């Protein structure tokens, strides 16, 4: 029951945000809706016990690709920025606040990981509380990432290698098409 509630809430939110992405007037707003959309999809993956895909979703889509989108949107300058955002003092304040928040976050993460290291001192080293060794035949729920890696590098090795050629093609293509004179 609880699962169903979570799922339907997420589904409605994801679809609603998807509509917002294509209906927002400003391109920047559209991209920001997209970020939230991606994050919610990541939550959906977590509820499906696919932690690895969820992390990748956040790192690659919400992190990498959308930042690129934002860059492109801002570089092509689809819409002139409203006057009030151009106030330099305001930007300085916001910047300081954001930088402070990030700093606090980093300190918190370092502190947390150091204390957890001390707690699990028997294993030693960073992240020693994760039992990698026990994961070989563990249940899907807890060992998602390990099992995915195992399958990817054994049965699916050849498609995996082919994907690397695919990425090389894309890279060569980006250079060929974007560079004026080779």
């Amino acid at each position: 029951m609880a699962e169903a509630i979570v799922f339907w809430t997420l589904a409605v939110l994801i679809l609603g945000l998807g509509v917002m992405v294509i209906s927002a007037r400003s391109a920047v707003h559209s991209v920001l809706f997209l970020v939230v959309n991606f994050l919610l999809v990541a939550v959906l993956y977590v509820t499906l016990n696919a932690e690895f895909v969820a992390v990748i979703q956040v790192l690659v889509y919400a992190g990498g690709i959308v930042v690129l989108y934002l860059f492109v949107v801002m570089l092509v300058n689809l819409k002139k920025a409203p006057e009030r955002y151009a106030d330099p003092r305001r930007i300085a304040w916001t910047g300081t606040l954001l930088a402070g928040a990030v700093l606090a976050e980093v300190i918190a993460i370092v502190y947390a990981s150091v204390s957890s290291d001390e707690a699990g001192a028997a294993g030693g080293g960073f992240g020693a509380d994760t039992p990698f060794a026990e994961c070989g035949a563990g249940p899907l729920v807890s060992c998602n990432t390990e099992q995915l890696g195992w399958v990817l590098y054994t049965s699916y090795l050849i498609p995996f290698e082919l994907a690397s050629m695919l990425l090389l093609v894309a890279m060569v293509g980006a250079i060929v098409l974007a560079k004026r004179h080779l």
Partner: protein
Amino acid sequence: MPAGFTVDDFYYLLPEILLTGGALLVLVVDILLPRREWAALGMTLFTLTLTGAAVIGFTGVDTTISAGLLAIDGFATFFKTVVIVSALLTVLMSPSYLRVEAVRPGEYYFLILCATLGMLFMASGVDLITLFIGLETMAVSFYILAGYLKPNQRSNEASVKYFLLGAFSLGILLYGMSLLYGETGTTTLAGIAEALAGGERSLTLALALILLVAGMGFKIAAVPFHMWAPDVYEGAPTPVTAYLSVGSKAASFAMILRIFIEGLPGLVADWQVLFWALAAVTMTVGNIAALTQSNIKRMLAYSSIAHAGYILIGVVAATERGVAAAMVYLWVYIFMQLGAFAVVAMLRRKDVIGDELKDLSGLYLRKPLAAVAMLIFMLSLGGIPPTAGFMGKLWLFSAAIESGLVWLAVIFVVNSVISLYYYYRVVVFMWLKDEIAGSEIAVSPAMATALVIAVVGSLLFGVYPQVLFDHAQVAADMFGSAVSSTAALQ
């Protein structure tokens, strides 16, 4: 060694490994060696020949490797040969065209080889993920190749259009695949066939089927998913257009036959209906739209749409004979279609783009041999004996009749007659109009080789088709048993 993966797998992957290594070497050779144009061309031809030899070396082998993801069988070998022969012809018609367009050859050949690599995987994949990555490798290479003429706006337009619609269609295809996976719990075609052997139906399966047909329909440019084809074919560099209309189509048909006949034999009655409608509409719309074109590349684009409709008849028949007929037709199609595009590529000079029908006028006076070659390609595309196109059509026709698809056969014949009009128009321009425009037409040795191979292919398989029939029959055998056994169950 981990489960399901052995050293033998690398032995069976020899063609793919050679091709990958060759493609990477082309990139290096292009940078390091002086006279890089010829070095890259030579390396490409060498790689393709070596790969072809390795593929032919596996004739008669029938096994699956890499934990059941890839099949090395007669079917795969047949389609790999088709793809490599078309790549060779494409590469041969490229150097003079690239020189006129003043673009760098190194990355061009690299991308052609990578597209070929993707096609090899599409021919031998028996698993949805492998097939998809092969398809994507091919598609991404073509997106870039279509836009390879950077200062040319039509080329840019072709690239962007193909990319957007291609990405969209891949999304649809993936949706279909994931629904199929959700329904059966496996991505291997054999596993899917087993899971659906009981003949159960559901809404999800129907949706998966429709999405798969639509996604693959985009790739073979079947109506109503053909909108991208004329614009992309017109804007892309002519050799790329040639390869797109032949290699990409052949590999996509290999994938269709694999997925539907090997993976979904239990649903044969359902997808037969979809493909029946697709085939009939594709032939008719393709041929009628081709009638009014004044640009040869657009005309050949619509003609290739129509040919996709013809080949779909073999898929609809879904019998051993139908599969064999589709394979025979694809084999003869590569020679006539590539030959026609080679002539168009030849017409490209410094001062003439050469892709309008009127650019052909007086060709008989200037280059009689090229005009005769073009005549043979047009006759073959129209299906006039004693050309190979006639044999291909005969096989498709008999396969349709054998499976009781009388109406489809009638539509097929009517369409063949309609198509004669626009193929004949090309001949009229070459012989009967004599206003000559533009500078002298030069035929490079590589181009001449390509034309000779295409002419020989278009004629040889028309007068002596037995070898081809035997090969296609052997390759189709495995499918015949799969389909007829399920048909007997129902």
